[in-house]
């Protein structure tokens, strides 16, 4: 195993309790060779940024079924920028099209609504991380 695994921080904002989907994603990303730092529920922008900092992650992935993400995501992006951190940020779960546009405009890299397959998430992450490191090397 020579390639350095992609590191992903994965959690849920606020009080969203439905964790079946996020656990499925966690396991799937692991099967795809990534190191998944699972944070669980009750995350705030501060806790996610704290984790992203010390874990030096390539990806921040948030899964939410309830709508709280719209409050937390802008804070998350601001705090990441303040600390000069630039991981790939993806949001998954129950996201209406309307919110999807807003999230992408705010600077989220990818949004994965209901019915997204694991494969599509894995492919997206691999491509996005590769692009980021190409940019960093340049």
């Amino acid at each position: 195993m020579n390639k350095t695994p992609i590191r992903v921080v994965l959690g849920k904002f606020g009080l969203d309790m439905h964790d079946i989907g996020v656990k499925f994603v966690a396991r799937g990303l692991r099967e795809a060779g990534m190191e998944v730092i699972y944070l669980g529920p009750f995350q705030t922008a501060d806790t996610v940024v704290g984790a992203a900092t010390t874990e030096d992650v390539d990806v921040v992935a948030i899964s939410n079924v309830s709508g709280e993400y719209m409050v937390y995501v802008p804070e998350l992006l601001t705090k990441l920028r303040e600390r000069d951190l630039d991981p790939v940020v993806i949001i998954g779960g129950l996201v209406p099209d309307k919110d999807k546009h807003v999230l992408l405009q705010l600077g989220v890299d990818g949004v994965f609504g209901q019915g997204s397959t694991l494969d599509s998430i894995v492919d997206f992450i691999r491509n996005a991380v590769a692009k980021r490191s190409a940019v960093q090397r340049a």
Partner: protein
Amino acid sequence: MSERNSASDVTWSGIPLKPFYGPSTPDSNYESKLGDPGVMPFTRAGHPEMYRKRLWITRQLAGLDTAAATNQRLRYLIANGQTGLAIVPDTPTQLGLDSDHPLGARSAGTQGVPLCTVDDMDRMLEGIDLRSITASFSVPGVSVPVLLGQLLAVAERRGVPWSALRGSFQNDPLQATHTCYDAGTPLELGMRLCADTMEHCARHVPGFHPTTVNAYDLRESGLNAAEEIGVAISMAQAYIEETLKRGLTIDQIGPGILLICAAHIDLFEEVAKFRAARRIWSRMMREHFGAKDERTCRLTLAVHTAGSSLFAQQPINNVVRGTVEAMAAILGGCQGLDLSAFDEPVDLPSEQAGMVALRTQQILALESGVANVVDPLGGSWYVEELTDEVERRTLAVMDEIAGLGGMVAAAKAGWLRRLMDERQWALQTSIESGERPVVGVNCHQISPEQDTLLSFRGEHPQPCKEQVEIVERFRSRRDAVAVRSALSALKSRVEAPSENLILPIKDAVEAGATLGEVLGEIRQAYGLQYDPVGAIVAGSTL
């Protein structure tokens, strides 16, 4: 507009129907394994007449963004003839957090009604005669004793004796442990509060079913039929054993426990499961716990059709799935039924989907005849053998749990968590791979362009700022000295492990303590972190 509330006693063509059918000369095998409906071991049904007497209760869940708004909705439902009210508290309340808690404020009132203070409970039930309704609260975790305390305080304010109150809680700490609803509360504390609630209701609020063991969410986690009821009944055993230590008898406690099960898509297996559950329950009550009253041995089964069996692709198919599952519940003799809305995989139920769910039940009840005869599948060679086999597997699961020292020990050791993770993964991968056929999803699919309703078109509700203000005003108006004094009285009762906490909790909420403050005080007394998510410190709200 006429209401029909019972099943028919003739077929469509006019053939008269007996209430149930059985062997002309029942032998000892029949008596011991099946029994007539309403008779030990209750395999065939909990009651002799079932739907001929009364159709199962249809409830619409109510829980809007403030107590006042919910009150309007409840009064509307009551005016339209509903007496059974199913109340869903919002997520902060479920977790024991106040509406103005840093994380609570961001989801206050969005997925149910906030019941942060005794005034919230009072306002929600304003103008409603507590004696004439049944209020069931969908709350599994530690908030239960506090909500009970709020309700008891409100009843006292109105001069309604506690013995006149009717309703239910979930009160299921073992389930809460596995779904994060018990955040920051070790099982030991959860079990104590659960038994306190059960004891208090057995002694003073006999019209309340304090405990509804949630087999449904176990099934939703991927467990199979036998595991669903095996684990749930083992959980019920744990609650009973804990409460028996308080000096009550099984006949005082037993009737207060319900099970809420899933109705999944394999119709015959589900019917067998319900029948096996009743048989196992009655034998457990009589033989293991020594119940003397037949009512104690009768399992009350509420059923919810399985949300996890529904899919986003070709959502109209979910109407068919819901119908099959509702049939399983009816043929299996449930006493209450909730149908998942067909758009559940992508959204909160729309009006249309809610109406379809209701009509499905009414069509099944009044047009199809499936509810006309009790346990119509009884006597089928297939169904009887299937019932026996499900029972055998369920008992094997229960034995395994008993071998680990009981459900509490098994949960603490991580047994259930591991089982759920394994089953969940296996289920999802079997669907993604096509091994488990799901029409429209992994076989007989249509292209996304031809499909409908693939994405969540609705809107997420905004957190309720008004509720945050309501709680802030409540804090500023209350007598802080009285609150502190009541909380400290509560604390000293917590420290005496054999004290039931319901009355001191009621006193504390009556004095003006909020949900978060009551639970924080209890947690502190146990040496735990005050706030389960660590966002606020003790005393900061007083």
